[in-house]
């Protein structure tokens, strides 16, 4: 998968200014960047939820146009959103099958709940996700359980490319270990992945390659083996210092 010169603005706010990014088959790519650098916007464009103002997306060297999340899914692109995109009032299995329900009677599209429950139970067992009850509303689950369900939903249908927007946010150590294992498992099965995370230790443990996004552009592209947590931290902190300094100077000019 490859994205070329992707730009996106929301009104006066420029979120992405010409992002170039590529993801090789079977690779895990980490995206690093400050809040508001444009990481989530990029993910939402790659999964078909948002349309870019300019630039193009290629999958297996073919240009694609995603008009909806469904279009991207047809190419095996699945997403775990930062907000998880779960419906609190629906049950675990209903969320797991949301917009991919098992139905019968053709056009009438009546839900085959029994079948969905059985498939959900089987799949969650397969990937070793523990949920107290398939019938419980997602509202009643812990943060980690919700995260696991969001990941399970994205991986259930043989995803080729998985986009994970902060999959380990707000999780306890035990729960994040479980999700890490899940991600590694999928990677071993040949699923390509883009992972956003603020925790460098997670990224270094998971990824093959890292891209740093700063102010809507990819500024650094490096193999994990060629860098270190210290180097990356230094890079981000020095960028922050520069911004801070620029801000102080601007403030100085205003007050002077």
């Amino acid at each position, binding site marked *: 998968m490859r994205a070329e010169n992707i730009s996106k603005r929301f009104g006066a706010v420029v979120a992405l200014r010409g992002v170039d990014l590529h993801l090789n088959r079977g690779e895990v790519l980490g995206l690093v960047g400050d809040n508001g650098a444009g990481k989530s916007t990029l993910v939402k464009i790659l999964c078909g*939820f948002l349309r870019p103002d300019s630039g193009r997306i290629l999958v297996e060297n073919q240009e694609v146009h995603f008009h*909806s*999340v*469904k279009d991207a*899914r047809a190419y095996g692109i699945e*997403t775990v*959103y930062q*907000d*998880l*995109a*779960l*419906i*609190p*009032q*629906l*049950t675990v299995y*209903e969320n797991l099958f*949301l*917009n991919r*329900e098992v*139905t019968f009677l053709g056009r*009438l*599209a*009546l*839900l085959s709940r029994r079948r969905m429950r059985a498939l959900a139970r089987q799949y969650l067992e397969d990937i070793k996700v523990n949920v*107290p*009850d398939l*019938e*419980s*509303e997602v*509202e*009643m689950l812990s943060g980690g359980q919700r995260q696991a369900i969001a990941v399970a939903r994205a991986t259930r249908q043989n995803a080729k490319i998985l986009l994970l927007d902060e999959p380990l946010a707000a999780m306890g150590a035990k729960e994040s270990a479980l999700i890490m294992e899940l991600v590694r498992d999928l990677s071993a099965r040949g699923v390509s992945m883009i992972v956003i995370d603020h925790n460098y230790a997670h990224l270094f443990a998971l990824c093959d390659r890292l891209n740093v996004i700063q102010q809507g552009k990819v500024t650094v592209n490096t193999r994990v083996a060629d860098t270190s947590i210290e180097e990356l931290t230094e890079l981000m902190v020095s960028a922050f210092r520069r911004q801070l300094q620029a801000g102080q100077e601007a403030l100085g000019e205003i007050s002077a």
Partner: protein
Amino acid sequence: MAQAAVSAGDRSPALPAPPPQVGRGATPLSLLKLAVQRREATVIIVTVGSVIYFSLRASSFYSVANIIVMVQYIAPIMVIGAGEVLMLVLAEIDLSAGQVYLTSPWFTYWFWSGGVPLGLAIAIALVLSALIGLINGLFTVRLRVPSLIVTLGTLYAFFGLVLVKSNYTQEQMPGTTGDFGKIFGIGSWSTILWGLLLTAGIWVLLKRSRFGLHTTASGGNLLAAAEAGIPVWRVKVWCFVIIAFVSGYMGILDSIRIGSMNPGNSGLDIVLTPIVAAVIGGTALTGGRATVLGTVIGAIFLGILEDGLNIIGVQASWFYFFEGVIILVAMAANVQLSQLAAKLRR
């Protein structure tokens, strides 16, 4: 009796069973648990209570003639109420449904008196009713006007249209004779049977179909539903069309049953009682949670109350007083119960 009916319908309680309470009043506690778990429980208990009360006060309560009067009153409340459930689950509301109910027989009448065969005139009226729903939906979704305001607009627009076009005079509804009339409104059980059919249709749609799950999802978390790829705007517009269609259908049936149409009737008077039925039945105004069954029971309860007060000789307008009191009590109970339910989940 109420308890048996509820637990039979209770497939699999979401809450883990609390440890058995020894030495505490078991009955009030289990009733409370029931009320917390099943949103319809409160209204079922109150309905059963009102049946017992009125049947003790008036021997004619159980007579066939009285039951027919009651179900004819209940039918449109139940159907429009079920339609409002589709709205409320989306965190929307349709105030125009009552006006669509009143306007569709006028559409029928105007086309029929213009020479169009009755069957075709009814079909056109139903299409026009659905179109009012489409307008409501598109204004809400595309122009982002809150549905409360949009439907208030269509309510007044069509109220005015009917007044002007009818020249402020009552008219006789066509189609009141023969088998046609019997099937479509005149027969004693006609409107309630149609009502049950339409309500069951909405129940299947909401609780058993893919469309219904998408509707609930859109009302529960609009962004998440969109992120999952659900065409949330299309789902919403369809719901506006469905409530308008069923309201228009019941309006035609009731006009055939009554035989005439009065242009002075206001749709606002008609739509509020179904909304009350939905709300006291346990459907939340905040979206994502809804019960068609509760709405049906809510409609039955309001029907029993209206009829019961009548036959025990209470002045008719007391009904409004009691309806008001019940809204206050039922809503307060529902809010308290859902807070309790949230506490029990933690």
